[in-house]
C-alpha cells in the first residue's frame, strides 16, 4: 500500500483514541461509522427512486450493495456525492460533516472518492497526467497556474502506477487504454485523492476473469485503511470480497447481513437472486 494511505490509517486511529475531540476539517468517526444515510427520499416525477433509505457504513468496512435494476443504487451514490439533492433525509460523513450542504468538489475534497459505472478518465491526457490531476493538493485556480510537480509527488504517482499495474503505460494517452485498464486507472485516480471513503459503481464490469480476480485482491487490500462501498451485479465477485451485504429494493433496504445469510433470505431470493 502507499505511504499516504498508511498515514491516513494512523491518523484516523488517533481520532478514535481521542474520543470526542473533533478537529475541524477531519472526519469524526468516534462512533465507529463513517457514513450515515437516514430517511433519504428522492423522487423523479412521482417515481420514488429512493424511499426513506437508511444505512450506515463503518470506518474501514468493505460493504457491497446489490439489488435489481432500478433499486436506487446509483441514485444513492448521486446523493452521497452531491450530484442529486434528496427531497428528504440526512446524509452525514462521520459525526459532523453534513454532505447535503456541500458541492461535488467539496465532498471530493472532504475525502469521498467516486468511480463511475462507465470508466471515466481524462482521455486526451496521459496516464501519468491523469493521476497527477487527481492527486490530493490545493485545487484552486491560482495554485493550478503556479503548480510544479515535486520529487515527492512523482514518487507517489510512481507508487500508484505500480499498484494499478500501469507503470509501462504511464506515458500514453488514457484514451488508448483497454476497458479494464481504464477501470484500474480510475481506481488509481481515486487512490491519489487519498479518500477516506471510496464508492465504486460496478468496478469489474467488462473485465476479464483474471482482471476481476486482481481487482478483488486490490479491494481487499484497501479495506481497513479506507472504507469502501461497492455496487456490483457480478455475484461471484461480490461473494469473493463481501463481508457484509446490503440488498436494495424499490429505493429502500430489503436485507442486510453476511453474504451467506443474504443468499438464503427468502425475500431476497424472490426479488433478486432467484430470477
Amino acid at each position: 500500500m502507499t505511504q499516504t494511505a498508511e498515514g491516513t490509517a494512523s491518523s484516523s486511529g488517533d481520532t478514535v483514541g481521542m474520543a470526542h475531540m473533533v478537529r475541524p476539517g477531519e472526519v469524526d468517526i468516534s462512533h465507529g461509522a463513517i457514513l450515515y444515510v437516514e430517511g433519504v427520499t428522492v423522487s423523479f416525477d412521482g417515481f420514488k427512486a429512493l424511499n426513506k433509505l437508511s444505512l450506515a457504513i463503518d470506518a474501514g468496512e468493505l460493504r457491497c450493495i446489490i439489488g435489481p435494476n432500478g433499486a436506487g443504487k446509483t441514485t444513492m451514490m448521486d446523493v452521497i456525492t452531491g450530484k442529486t439533492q434528496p427531497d428528504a433525509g440526512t446524509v452525514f460523513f462521520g459525526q459532523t460533516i453534513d454532505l447535503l450542504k456541500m458541492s461535488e468538489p467539496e465532498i471530493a475534497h472532504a475525502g469521498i472518492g467516486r468511480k463511475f459505472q462507465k470508466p471515466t478518465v481524462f482521455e486526451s491526457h496521459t496516464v501519468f497526467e491523469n493521476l497527477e490531476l487527481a492527486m490530493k493538493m490545493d485545487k484552486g485556480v491560482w495554485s493550478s497556474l503556479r503548480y510544479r510537480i515535486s520529487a515527492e509527488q512523482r514518487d507517489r504517482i510512481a507508487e500508484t502506477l505500480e499498484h494499478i499495474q500501469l507503470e509501462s503505460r504511464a506515458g500514453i494517452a488514457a484514451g488508448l487504454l483497454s476497458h479494464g485498464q481504464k477501470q484500474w486507472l480510475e481506481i488509481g485516480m481515486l487512490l491519489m485523492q487519498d479518500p477516506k471513503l471510496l464508492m465504486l459503481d460496478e468496478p469489474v464490469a467488462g473485465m476479464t476473469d483474471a482482471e476481476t480476480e486482481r481487482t478483488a485482491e486490490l479491494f481487499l487490500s484497501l479495506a481497513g485503511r479506507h472504507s469502501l462501498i461497492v455496487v456490483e451485479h457480478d455475484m461471484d465477485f461480490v461473494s469473493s470480497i463481501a463481508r457484509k451485504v446490503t440488498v436494495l429494493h424499490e429505493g429502500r433496504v430489503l436485507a442486510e447481513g453476511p453474504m451467506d445469510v443474504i443468499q438464503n433470505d427468502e425475500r431476497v431470493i424472490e426479488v433478486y437472486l432467484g430470477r
Partner: protein
Amino acid sequence: MGPIVAFFTRLYGPRGWLTLGGFIAVVLFVIPLLRLLPPEHSLHLSDYFVLLIGKIMCYAMVALAMDLIWGYAGILSLGHGLFFALGGYSMGMYLMREIGTEGQYRSHLPDYMVFLDWKEFPWYWAGSEYFWLAVLKVILVPGLLAFVFGWFAFRSRIKGVYFSIITQALTFAFMLLFFRNDTGFGGNNGFTDFKRILGFPLADPVTKTALFMITGLFLVLTLLACRYLVISKLGRVLAAIRDAEGRAMFSGYKTRDYKLFVWTLSAVMCGIAGALYVPQVGIINPSEMSPANSIEMAIWVAVGGRGTLVGPLFGAGLVNGAKSWFTVAFPDFWLYFLGCLFILATLFLPRGAIGLLDRLRRKT
C-alpha cells in the same frame, strides 16, 4: 539568470523562439524600415498593406482568445464579437473626445449628439477624455460583462449548444441596443472621423506604423500568456473539464471557477484586440456585434486547428487574407465560400490546417 532562462525554455523550444523572434523582427524592424522608403520605391509598403496586416493581427488575438475557451476548455462562444466591440467602443469614446471641436458642427460634443440636440455628455461619458481611463475600460467593461454572464451561466450549469446559443443572443441584444440613437453611442453609424490619439494625428503614416507595431507586440504577448496558461496544470485541468467534467468535479476541482476564470480572461483579450483595431481602422459601429461576426471568429479557430494556439493564428490570417481578396474579386460569393470552408474544415480537417500540415510532414 537560471530561473528566467528555464521559464522561457519551458514556453517554447529553440525552433519556436526562432520563429517568434523572426516574427518580432519583421513587425518591429523590417516593416517599419520599409515604411520609411519613399512612395516611389518598389519595396515601399502602402498604408493599405499595413492596415490589412494590423487588422489581421487584431483578429489573430481574438482567435487566440477563442482557442483558449473553445479549444482547451470546450466552451464554444458565438458571442465573442461583443467583447471585441466593447473594447473597441471603450477606446472609441476616448478617440471621439480627442476630436475636440474639429467636428462638422464645431461643438465640443460629437456630431451625432449635436444632431440629436443634446446639450451635454450623458453621465456615462464622464472621464472619457482620459486615455488611462479608456485603457481601464477596455479591460473592465468586457471583463465585467463576461464575469457576470459567466457567473450565472456556469452556476446554472448551462453547457454545450445551449451556452453557444445564449452567447449569440447576448451579442444580438447588445447590437440592437447600440443601434438605438438614444443609447448615446452614435446609433448605426457608431464612432468615426477620429483625428488623433494621445495628440498624434491618426492620418500620419508614422502613427499608423506605431499602432501596427504596438499591435504586433500585443499579439506576441497574448500568445505567450496563452502558452503559459495552457502548458501549466491549469491548462491540463481545462482540458480535463472539456473531456470529462464530472470526473474533474469528483476529483475536487471547482470547475465553475476554472471556466469563469478562462471565460473572463478570454473576453478581456478580445476587448484589448478591439481597442487596438479601432484606431487603425478608424470606425466602430454595432455591426461588429452582429451574430455573423462572432460565428466567423469560431471559423478562424476551426479552420486553423483547435487547441493548438498556433493553428488559430494561421486560421485568422488565412480566412481574413482570403476575405480581403474575395470581397474585391467576387463580393457576392464571399459568404458562400466561408460557409463551404467551414463545412469542409469540419468534415475533412477535424484538426484544422495545423493537423493537415502535421499529416503531410509525417508522410514525407
